């Protein structure tokens, strides 16, 4: 099966006055056609930066330092800014930013804000109304909302508008960064169903979140991100049922559940400073299985549909699972 997205050795750093923050530090993975992916990790692990890098929307002092992003045979990082803006951004890949529903302009109607997106991308004026109504219907809202202002809508409705904004030019790939955080649980369920519907309509979704439970609703493949690196990548079955990396195991164990043992579990400690990440495995000081060899950078070991970066699996016998 052909790969629809390949990310190779992506590095995005923030060059601050006191040093470079290595937010995305050599990330590689690939997706097959029709596969949606979830990127999970704690706050400040670099997952939002990964999303922004794919959109080529990193603000200075952030900068993509290295890497290739191949979307259906085209390296979108190698393109000029002009070509990327014209052909790719928002038209082939779009993003729902974290907290976007709070960034809607309070003084403009929904219609005007959606129009602005279309105008910016050179969409013909006389077709705008039709496209706006289509986008709003696609997210399950009644077209009458377009005449309202953001404060008249509930949190869930605003989030749908922001998703409509991302879909309006019919991209094939949508990056959603924490789309359900800060929403009530019943509204979260509706947004998850909306994302499922979009998947059925042919969209590929990259879901960025710290909530490993909702990732299971959307993603065929999951990448676990820690301190700027992807430490494990694999199919959903693999990650939930046979997690390999100790960090993945700890994250899975920390998910609160409605049924089963009431044993509280969490990941002790804090992630390392990304300005001076330690040499060797970055999870070393929080890992229950840390060994001497972990002071060296762990190799990437291929496992079924993905890989794990951990010395525990270096033994060639183990890597044949």
């Amino acid at each position, binding site marked *: 099966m052909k790969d629809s997205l390949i990310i190779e050795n992506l590095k995005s750093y923030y060059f601050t006055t006191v040093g470079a923050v290595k937010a995305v530090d050599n990330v590689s993975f690939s997706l097959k056609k029709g596969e949606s992916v979830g990127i999970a990790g*704690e*706050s400040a692990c670099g997952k939002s930066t990964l999303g922004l890098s794919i959109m080529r929307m990193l603000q200075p002092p952030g900068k993509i330092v290295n890497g290739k992003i191949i979307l259906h045979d085209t390296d979108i990082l190698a393109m000029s800014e002009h070509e990327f803006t014209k052909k790719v951004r928002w038209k082939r890949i779009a993003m729902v930013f974290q907290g976007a529903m709070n960034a809607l302009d309070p003084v403009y109607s929904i219609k005007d804000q959606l129009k602005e997106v279309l105008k910016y991308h050179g969409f013909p004026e006389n077709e705008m109304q039709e496209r706006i109504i289509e986008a709003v219907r696609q997210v399950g809202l009644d077209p009458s909302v377009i005449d309202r202002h953001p404060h008249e809508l*509930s*949190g869930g409705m605003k989030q749908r508008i922001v998703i409509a904004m991302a879909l309006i030019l019919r991209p094939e790939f949508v990056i959603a960064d924490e789309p359900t955080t800060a929403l*009530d*649980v*019943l509204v*979260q*369920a*509706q947004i*998850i*169903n909306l994302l*499922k519907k979009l998947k059925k309509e042919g969209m590929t979704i990259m879901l960025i979140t*710290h*909530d*490993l*439970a*909702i*990732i*299971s*609703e*959307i*993603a*065929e493949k999951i990448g676990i991100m820690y301190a700027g690196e992807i430490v494990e990548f694999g*199919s*959903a*079955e693999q*990650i*939930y*049922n046979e997690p390999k990396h100790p960090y993945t195991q*700890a*994250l*899975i164990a*920390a*998910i*609160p*559940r*409605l*049924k089963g043992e*009431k044993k*509280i*579990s*969490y*990941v*002790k400690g*804090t992630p390392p400073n990304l300005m001076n990440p330690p040499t060797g495995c970055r999870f070393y000081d929080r890992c229950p299985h840390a060994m001497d060899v972990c002071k060296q950078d762990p190799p990437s070991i291929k496992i079924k549909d993905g890989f794990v970066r951990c010395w525990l699996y270096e033994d060639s016998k183990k890597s044949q699972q």
Partner: protein
Amino acid sequence: MQSTDNLFVDVRSLRKWFQVKRTFAETMHSKEEKVVKAVDDISFKIPKGSVFVLAGESGSGKTTVARLILRAIEPDNGNVFFNGTDITKLNERELKAFRINAQMVHQDPYASIDPRMRIMEIVMEPLSVHKIGSKKEQEEKVFRALEEVRLEPAADIAYRYPHMLSGGQRQRVAIARALVLKPKFIVADEPVSMLDISVRAEILELMQSLQKKHDITYLYITHDLSTARYIGDQIAIMYLGKIAEMGPIDKVLLNPLHPYTQALIDAISEPDPGNLFKEKMVRIKTETGIERVSTGCNFYNRCPYAMDICKTEPKLIEIEDSHYVSCFLYPK
């Protein structure tokens, strides 16, 4: 049923209605005054040393209940008995004394602590307000409180500013500040919802160990039922100002009776790769506005099982041991 000896907080028929401002046009046309019945006849009991969970979505009234219990706002009606004393009748001086024993931990660790104060000043503030101890004694209490919440080395953390701490650490500062007066009752309003899932359990475990050590009673407010399960003993599910269902937490979560509780539980995602192939069950109808039925069950508009009788007011009745529900579907 609990004996009243063990009863610590006894809330009876608490009520708080807010007037909704009318526009000039509405006043001119003599339109009826609209009222938001934020808290509408709420009663519950919290036994000493237990964790009572008040659960509901935004707009359910749960935070208003918390504020009423601490008398941060005044109730329109009802009583709150705290260790036998009706705190709704206390005067200002008595109220201040009560507040030494009843503290609050807020939801947002980025907003609830002053970014321009050092940790030492933040945690010391309650002691200063209540004029407890000399400066030196207050400093010692702050160090002890920071150690209790495992913010160590306390001497180092005490002189930092909030922006130098992570979200989880800030929330621990908020807990230290609530603890420093050695209260017997703490209201925790969504204490972990703004923290990463991997860190939540750590704060919950801290709250549990503090509870055992200091015999603290908690009112835990949240919309996250899975996390509440780890810390709660009893739970009350609130919907638009009323209690829909109430009982021991395991009974309510494993055998939800009220359609609203069932909907909340259906909405929760468990980490199961099988979820990819199923749609999330959303049985209830979407709310289109904030219009509410003026009489009868306030869940009527959204309930998949709504019947004619639901236009009259349901009452909370006991269905099985200590498990109450307010719904005409019961008794079956």
